[in-house]
């Protein structure tokens, strides 16, 4: 899930469920399944084929039932494909190193008593891993706040302030949306080296912020632009300054978009490995880098890797399940819009 990958939709504009409009947001977040599943072929088809083919209706119903059965089997198999990999690592994380060496994690399904939380206890007692989780927080939280603040300021300026060159500047920012982070690795590491930010948490935060901004500006500008002009006019007539207007009118109205963006940005930084690999302080790396160093000896350290990976996934999963709606609309805003 990489924010800079999300590309403004090249083809489907108005007709896709727009994600950036204040009004459109809730619908977008609604999973499409909220639609009543009326199109069940098993029932729909015979009723339409009804009168003329009354004699063949048993056959029709039978074949429709068969199709529905095949459909279910297919989906169950697919669900297993999606479930098993994660389940495997989860169960492995609860097995002792001896049990891990003695056979596959699936054996524990018949012997659940082997499950133990020892790996987690050992891992939580390990300062490198717990420290790296804190480091990840120390990177992800400031980055998210910075991106939201700077992005909201700039988004507001692009939406409602008048200045020469506004449009081409905005297009430039949109253009930066697809610039791969890889392009900046060498130049920025030299730059940071020159000003003493290389291998510091501040450096990682600044780098992430810069690469988070194009999407933030793009999303928030479009969202803010939908605020009814009359609201702003009224506030201006009341003598509110731009800063006040921004804080009292625009920010509260932009809440949904800011929330989506914040969640998206937080997860993106939390999950990043490449930027941290290059710019993070090697003495206090974030959790992705700490675990990556373990991957090199993959095989005899699953008792460290599996629980480590799950600890690192915990926050994203909690965020994902708690804020599904915002997360989905953030993803959609990136792609559909």
């Amino acid at each position: 899930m990489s924010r800079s990958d999300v590309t403004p939709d090249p083809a489907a504009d108005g007709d896709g469920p727009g994600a950036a409009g204040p009004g459109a947001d809730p619908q977008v977040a609604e999973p499409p399944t909220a639609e009543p599943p009326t199109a069940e072929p098993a029932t729909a088809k015979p009723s339409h084929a009804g009168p003329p083919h009354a004699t063949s209706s048993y056959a029709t119903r039978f074949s429709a039932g068969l199709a529905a059965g095949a459909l279910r089997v297919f989906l169950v198999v697919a669900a297993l494909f999606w479930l098993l990999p994660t389940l495997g690592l989860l169960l492995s994380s609860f097995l002792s190193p001896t049990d891990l060496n003695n056979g596959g994690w699936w054996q524990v399904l018949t012997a659940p008593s082997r499950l133990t939380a020892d790996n987690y206890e050992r891992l939580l007692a390990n300062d490198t891993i717990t420290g790296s989780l804190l480091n990840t927080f120390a990177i992800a939280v400031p980055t998210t706040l910075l991106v939201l603040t700077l992005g909201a300021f700039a988004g507001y300026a692009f939406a409602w302030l008048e200045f020469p060159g506004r449009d081409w500047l905005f297009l430039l920012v949109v253009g930066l949306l697809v610039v791969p982070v890889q392009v900046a690795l060498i130049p920025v590491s030299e730059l940071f080296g020159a000003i003493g930010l290389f291998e510091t948490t501040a450096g990682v935060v600044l780098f992430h912020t810069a690469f988070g901004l194009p999407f933030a500006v793009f999303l928030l500008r479009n969202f803010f632009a939908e605020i009814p002009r009359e609201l702003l006019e009224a506030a201006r007539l009341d003598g509110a300054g731009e800063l006040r207007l921004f804080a009292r009118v625009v920010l509260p109205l932009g809440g949904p978009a800011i929330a989506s963006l914040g969640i998206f940005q937080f997860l993106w930084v939390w999950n990043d490995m490449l930027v941290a690999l290059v710019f993070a302080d090697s003495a206090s790396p974030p959790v992705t880098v700490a675990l990556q160093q373990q991957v090199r000896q993959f095989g005899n350290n699953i008792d460290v890797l599996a629980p480590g990976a799950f600890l690192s996934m915990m926050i994203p999963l909690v965020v994902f399940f708690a804020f599904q709606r915002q997360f989905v609309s953030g993803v959609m805003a990136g792609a559909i819009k």
Partner: protein
Amino acid sequence: MPAPAAKGAPGAGVPGKRVPAERGPAKHGPASGVSAEARRRRLIAAAFLLPALVLLGALVVHPIGYSLYRSFFDRSGSTFVGGDNYREILSDDTIRTALTNTALWVVLAPTTATALGLIFAVLTERVRWGTAFKLLVFMPMAISMLAAGIIFRLVYDHDPDRGVANAVWVGVHDTFAESSAFPKARPGRDSPLTDAGGGAFTTRDPVRAGTPVLLPLVGVAPEALPDGTRTAGTAGAEPGKVTGTVWQDFTRGGGGSSNVVDPTEQGFAGMRIEAVKDGKVVDTATARSDGTFTLSGKADGALLRLPAANFREAYSGVEWLGPSLVTPAVIGAYVWMWAGFAMVLIGAGLAAVPRELLEAARVDGANEWQVFRRITVPLLAPVLAVVLVTLVINVMKIFDLVFVIAPGAVQDDANVLALQLYRTSFGTDADPGLGSAIAVLLLVLVVPVMLVNIRRLRKEGSR
């Protein structure tokens, strides 16, 4: 009325879909122009924009220019080398592999993920637990590529007792071709058995009914013997029948003599024995748990053969992370992560497809496949295009998954552009010049998408 005219060409290039171009921003004094008021507004705008623009300029725009410049210099950065770095991209074997693999990624990954997403989106509309299914498939989007990498490193583990992919594969394989119990067994020194080619062994001399045959083998680890194996017994002579013993002719701790059934030696339970006369199998037998066997009189004068099936190596599955399969394997992990993205976007598009249209087609006698093929897919085409483009850009920059899943020894075979860039730019043998050239190449590959985006925004603004 505000004074939108203050902005040169009204609306040209004002992006945003529902903002009419005339909607200028603030209230303007009737006498616009560069009044003190306008200057104040510009200052405010600058203050709002400056922090973001400074960061973008220093850390995103400047690096693009610098990479371009740096790519024309050598490793140390002091000598201008012209296009040499770019030529090296095309001539260096490792980088060429990276290029072809990236091409493979771009062709395979987005299409597979989109196709699966489409199938899931359409099918989940029809089952009651569709939402749960979607949640499950979408979940990997939330986790890091590192975590997904670790998950799949375990899935693809070569050991069928650890990697679930090989466990399933070997399980399926063994249902059709049973593996043998004695993969390493072979005749010892001075054995009456000899190699018959193709992995089978045969006696040197024809056997006689009534004379017990000895078929000694060595080389099976004691703990690898099948369950139920007992100490080898001596076969008694039976008139009119061929009897014998097939056993492990090796006494633990030493002391046994070769080609003799010593007291503690183990029989090869379940070994298959064939009697061959003139190239034809005339009789077969299976060794009992003490290694003894009995053949009928037809075997008299035949050669006894231990067919290759007894010695076939246990099937150990596919080497998913070997040089030839590693790229498809990592692509599989990527599809696992991103099919949910495609599914959710396509699902949203699907919700916007008018139901009446589908119903009308069904009433007209179209079957489900025709409805899908002729109505649903064409209506979804714009969404499918968005998903594909997004995934293509994403795939061009793929790094973490390959870096984590591909074991060190096959990273050259799994190489992709972004990984090569990292390996070239950092580490012990870093060459920032070449690294910059790869970075520029990567940028050039995504620029067309950038242009499409900008053009679309332009068009929207002028509408």
